[in-house]
């Protein structure tokens, strides 16, 4: 798949710069390092046990941008963020994509998550998707805000859906972003119809 526009260089507060780029087959060691040092609290909400080398090996050996678009944030040669857009290429939800993201603690609250999510929203629109989903736990206020800044709204709450590091059950918030409106203007433009025609 053609991935124009990458790498992107993102300046952060404090004159630091982060590179945002797609995952490469050579990222196995870097990705394992990144996930290994994530606090357990942050890892708990991930779908797979990313501290297992074979899981990471699976990620880098099965890169398929038609199914998952993985973006990494890199700072001084180290991976500091991972964001993915999951696609369903067949079936009744093929117009829907899901964004998942994890950012190193040191780089949270600095706009990195928003920037990575923005890249994925833009990519989703360029693929013609209509709707995006993201899941956050109800106490992940900053992550929820980051998604809301990009147009996501709370669509559902699954009560007591996840259990945190202390064994406390928490609500899972499903956020959605209907990006189909972006195409409404285009639809009007290609209608080949003048509202003033005939009167």
């Amino acid at each position: 798949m053609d991935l124009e526009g990458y790498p992107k260089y993102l300046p952060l507060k404090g004159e630091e710069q982060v590179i945002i780029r797609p995952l490469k087959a050579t990222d196995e060691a870097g990705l394992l390092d990144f996930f290994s040092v994530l606090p357990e609290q942050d890892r708990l909400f991930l779908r797979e046990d990313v501290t297992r080398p074979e899981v990471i090996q699976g990620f880098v050996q099965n890169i398929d941008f038609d199914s998952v678009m993985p973006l990494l944030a890199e700072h001084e040669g180290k991976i500091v963020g991972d964001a993915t857009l999951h696609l369903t290429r067949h079936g009744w939800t093929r117009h829907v994509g899901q964004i998942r993201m994890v950012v190193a603690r040191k780089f949270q609250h600095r706009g990195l998550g928003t920037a990575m999510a923005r890249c994925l929203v833009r990519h989703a629109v360029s693929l013609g998707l209509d709707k995006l989903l993201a899941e956050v736990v109800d106490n992940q206020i900053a992550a929820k805000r980051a998604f809301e800044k990009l147009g996501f709204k709370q669509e559902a709450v699954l009560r007591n859906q996840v259990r945190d590091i202390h064994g406390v059950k928490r609500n899972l918030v499903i956020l959605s972003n209907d990006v189909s409106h972006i195409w409404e203007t285009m639809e009007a433009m290609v209608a080949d119809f003048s509202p003033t025609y005939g009167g």
Partner: protein
Amino acid sequence: MAKTEIRIGGLGGQGVILSGIIIGKAASIYDGKHSTLIQAFGPEARGSACSAQVMIDDNAIGYPYVKTPDILVVMSSAAYTQFVPELGDSGMLLYEEELVDPKDLPAGVKTYGIPATRIAEELGRRLVLNIVMVGFFAGVTGILSPKAVEKAVLASVPRGTEDLNLKAFKRGFEHGESLVKGN
């Protein structure tokens, strides 16, 4: 460049008029030529016949109506039937190859087909069929610089849709260019 008369025909909802606007904009604003556009459409939003007449010239254009198109772009069978009699003996026909079946054309007419609707669907949005067609037009005819057409596409489509429209333009352009090189 001598005056080039272009007729674009199709159905409402295919973006025929927008194609004409983009080609005219590319010629006049980004390639420094003169251009005019005449548009015609039925009263229904979708499915009715519509067409655009685009004139491009290095000099000022005194008469904007297309009489004998040098280039006919058709995106529907009905448009082909309606407009092909106007095409000059040495004209050029660009057509949506899964919707139009060109036949009985004068020997001098050059024909180039593209599955524009299928390409647009592969890209994720059938809506961008007209942009695929604009790219195809640019790739086959070579009368406008690709950069000018690309800029005109980006300046004409809604914000947020630029990336997909640009992909559509490139797919159409590459398809057109490959057909010309293959001939």
